[in-house]
């Protein structure tokens, strides 16, 4: 990594580099999932890796989400460092038993004897006209589960750096890659890959309102904040990065600074991560709030196919701008 100065790459390439790097660093690491080998990965993330690392370490699995996810868990117990790729979060429901009934709770149920160092990656999110069964954002739903760690890389440096931290973690880590970000291009900062997997990051400083978001929401929020700046509203954009455990400290210090909080999440409001964050902010910072917490979330419908309907169901820069502008006391 030392030779890397400034590199422009896509999110996809950053993840690929992260996997490659991990495979090179640690013999125990292997990648397992549907079509990760010959096909090159459903989203082309692992293209070329079969040739590079061989069938022993890049393992194409049958369509057995529960089977191979459980296999990854077992392999982690047996001393390996598996990266399990589930094509999309939608299919992870077939493996929910293994993730929730085993990975998340084994350490606790065994009184601290068996930790599960497995990393499970999956694509998440909508916006590509794939309709209801392929467009969910369930990362917040997984963040409900004690015992799991939930990562949501939104930037090139996080796509590049989070995986290794996840593999070093003794406990199960789920990484949610928003599928609309795979082609997103960015620059890997010099000495990038230096973030931990505990903290949120302020991606844009501002004094008037804190936009708390993650994943694709970060990009929409940054776009919105530029528009807001033209109207004299300076938004602070906080990239949550980790949905569990949430970095209260960073969230709270931003909201204390601005007195206003908006949560942008493509997931649904009801019982979602946005509800959780809102509640924490209200519980802890009630007397710091200059107006009610706002949420801009996915409409509570199964994702529709038609483009205009789907777009109407998702947050966008305009809806963020609109919401922020009507927050009490935001001007002046």
């Amino acid at each position, binding site marked *: 990594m030392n030779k890397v100065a400034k590199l422009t790459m896509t999110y996809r390439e950053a993840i690929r580099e992260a996997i490659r790097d991990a495979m090179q660093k640690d013999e125990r690491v292997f990648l397992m999932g549907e079509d990760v080998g010959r096909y090159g990965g459903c989203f082309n993330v692992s293209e070329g890796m079969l040739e590079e690392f061989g069938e022993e370490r890049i393992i194409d699995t049958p369509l057995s989400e529960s089977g191979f996810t459980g296999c990854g868990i077992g392999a982690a117990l047996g001393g390996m460092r598996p990266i399990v790729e589930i094509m999309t979060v939608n299919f992870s429901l077939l493996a929910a038993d293994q993730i929730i009934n085993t990975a998340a709770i084994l350490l606790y149920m065994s009184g601290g004897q068996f930790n599960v160092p497995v990393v499970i990656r999956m694509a998440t999110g909508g916006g590509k006209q794939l309709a209801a069964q392929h467009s969910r954002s369930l990362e917040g739903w997984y963040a409900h589960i004690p015992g799991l760690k939930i990562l949501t890389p939104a930037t090139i440096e996080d796509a590049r750096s989070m995986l290794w931290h996840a593999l070093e973690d003794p406990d199960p880590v789920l990484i949610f890659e928003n599928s609309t970000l795979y082609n997103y291009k960015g620059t890997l900062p010099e000495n990038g890959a230096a973030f931990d997997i505990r903290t949120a990051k302020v991606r844009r400083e501002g004094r008037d309102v804190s936009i708390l978001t993650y994943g694709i929401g970060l990009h929409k929020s940054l776009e919105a904040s530029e528009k807001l700046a033209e109207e004299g509203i300076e938004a602070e954009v906080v990239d949550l990065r980790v949905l569990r455990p949430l970095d209260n400290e960073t969230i709270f210090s931003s909201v204390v600074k601005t007195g206003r909080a908006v949560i942008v999440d493509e997931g649904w409001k009801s019982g979602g991560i946005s509800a959780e964050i809102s509640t924490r902010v209200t519980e802890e910072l009630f*007397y710091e*709030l200059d107006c009610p917490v706002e949420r801009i979330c996915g409409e509570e419908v199964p994702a529709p196919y038609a483009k205009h309907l789907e777009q109407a169901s998702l947050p966008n820069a305009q809806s963020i701008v609109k919401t922020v502008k009507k927050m009490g006391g935001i001007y002046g």
Partner: protein
Amino acid sequence: MGKFVMPSLGSEMIDAKLVQWFIQPGDKVNKGDIIGEIDTEKGLIDIEIFEEGIVTELIAKEGETIPVGSIMAIINGADEKTKVEVIETKQQEPNGEKELPKKNGKLKHPHKEDNKESTVKVKASPLARRVAEDLGVDLTKVGGSGPAGTIHRKDVEAFAELKKADETFEKELEMADHLSAADKKSMRHSIAAAMSRSNQEIPHYYLEIDIDMKRALDWLQETNNKRPVNERLMPAMLLIKTVANALAEVPELNGFWTDEAMHIEEGIHIGFAISLRQGGLVIPAILNADRKSLDEIRSEFVDMVTRAREGHLRSREVSSATITLTSLGERGAQKVYGVIYPPQVALIGFGKIMERPHAVEGMIGIRPVLSTVLAGDHRATDGHTGSRFLEKINEQLQHPEAL
């Protein structure tokens, strides 16, 4: 026993509708407290009280339209003091050790939640409540800028600022007392009544001058380029400052015609007309503008314009001007011949700055020209004084850097 009457807040104001009382019988009020909100033709305006005492009766009902000068409430002065003390002690007990900021040794501001007797429900953000507690601001007196009048942090902070400015103003007025023949209270309350007579009674004279604004505008642009967007200067601010400075040199135009005599005021308070979106004008004043820097004038100006449009000007701000300035800005006509607001004795009208042929040192050039018209009260001054005044304005605008 004092009577609180519907204040006159502008020349055109005949009456106003009481929207809301912020007080109720039994409340203690202090000089400067906002006690209610009225709906005028210019929008919602907070009304403040000028004496200290206990509210004994609210005569005006919410929703009622009350003529200027009619009694709205009865305020009992000194004899109820003991009762106040009792309330004070009561309210301090549950608060225990908690230090609440004291303002001039007055009653600690009560927590609305604690004050069961109060029926005034204040809509304020939690942060506004906390800041109000820190700054010792009574939220019932603060106008809210948010949806449905919700009070936000900035409202509380602005209120606290204003309160501070008011206190300073009171001191300034006291200092100027010996010069002013106008009774302060009657001054405020007589404006409207006098205004209705203005056109008939004031013998207006008008003087005009065309001012070359090239230097002033160039200087403005140069200065603004070095400033962040939100700190940029506007021509109107420059004009306020210029008028104030000119008045310092020609004080004859600064003051009031009362009791058939001219009374020159020491404080130079420039009233400036703000046209409201809903129509009409309000004329708040920048106090002691001659002693303020351009930046101070800028920030007060911005603040007042914002609050004027939100309907949150305080009555004192719209009744203290010693002269009025009206500026048409970029829109409007070339010249404005104004009507003096009595008991003031002058009104200075700035037209639109226009590119026009103008002779400079013997050469005709196209220059930005500002047509300036002084309306003077012939009983108080004459054209000679007026000309000197206009010339002082012109001189300053040719040397904007000195401002």
